[in-house]
């Protein structure tokens, strides 16, 4: 691992590649969770995890390239995520009210 040049004090000297790897791992864990679990709330949480992995990547790119846009984008992703969770949870509540379960395998009506 090559020692990087510090531009300013107190700044991380970690290479960007590491952030790539980290966010990939987090993203994959999120995907794994979606595949692994049947509880809809957990799946929702895993999706949040995936979004965060992507956010992390965006921020890292933004920082390393000195570009503002990545951060703004993350901001909007957060907006969408918040809205998504609100609606998603509301849906879950109403589903739970009907079938008393949050198991997505039970929700298999949408088929031929």
């Amino acid at each position: 691992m090559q020692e990087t040049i510090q531009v300013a004090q107190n700044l991380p000297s970690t290479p960007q590649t590491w952030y790539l790897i980290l966010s990939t791992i987090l993203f994959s864990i999120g995907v794994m969770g979606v595949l692994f679990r049947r509880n809809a709330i957990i799946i929702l949480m895993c999706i949040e995890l995936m979004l965060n992995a992507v956010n992390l990547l965006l921020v890292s790119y933004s920082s390393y390239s000195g570009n503002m846009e990545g951060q703004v984008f993350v901001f909007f992703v957060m907006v969408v995520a918040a809205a998504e969770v609100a609606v998603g949870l509301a849906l879950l509540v109403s589903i739970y009210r009907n079938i008393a379960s949050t198991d997505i395998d039970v929700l298999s009506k949408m088929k031929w």
Partner: protein
Amino acid sequence: MKSEIIFYLLSALSIISALVVVFTKNPIYSVLSLIVCFFSIAGHYVMLNSQFLAIVHIIVYAGAIMVLMLFTVMLLNLNKESEPHKSSLIKVAAIITGGLLMLTILASLKTTQLTAYSTPADLGLGSVQSVGMSLFTEYLLPFEISSILFMSAMIGAVVLAKKER
């Protein structure tokens, strides 16, 4: 060196907590460990000189979203016993698939063109001031539209969660 150590620690924390989210059987633990995960990611943001985003991240995710999650879990009275399980075959398949996905993504990223800077540039990008300037000038329209999104999400959530009739 110091920053590297911090990075390792934060990364380990976030990966472990993420794994806990996936593998723990009790939904409450999942929620709590996800909060931990989010905090560690916020730490990463700080490391990357994005202080503003780190704060917003904590407020939105840990403060709002996760509380919402927790509320819901508790409201629906989900616990370890009521937790549905998949068959072990699917679990194995899920792990393998997730691993494969990680491998392919990493393999794809190997060819990525990295940015000009080898270290994060501190140009004051992450400050409240610069993000605010950007949001309220260049990205004013999307910013305002996102408020409409929020409102519709709010209305939607109320309508959906409301008792029927």
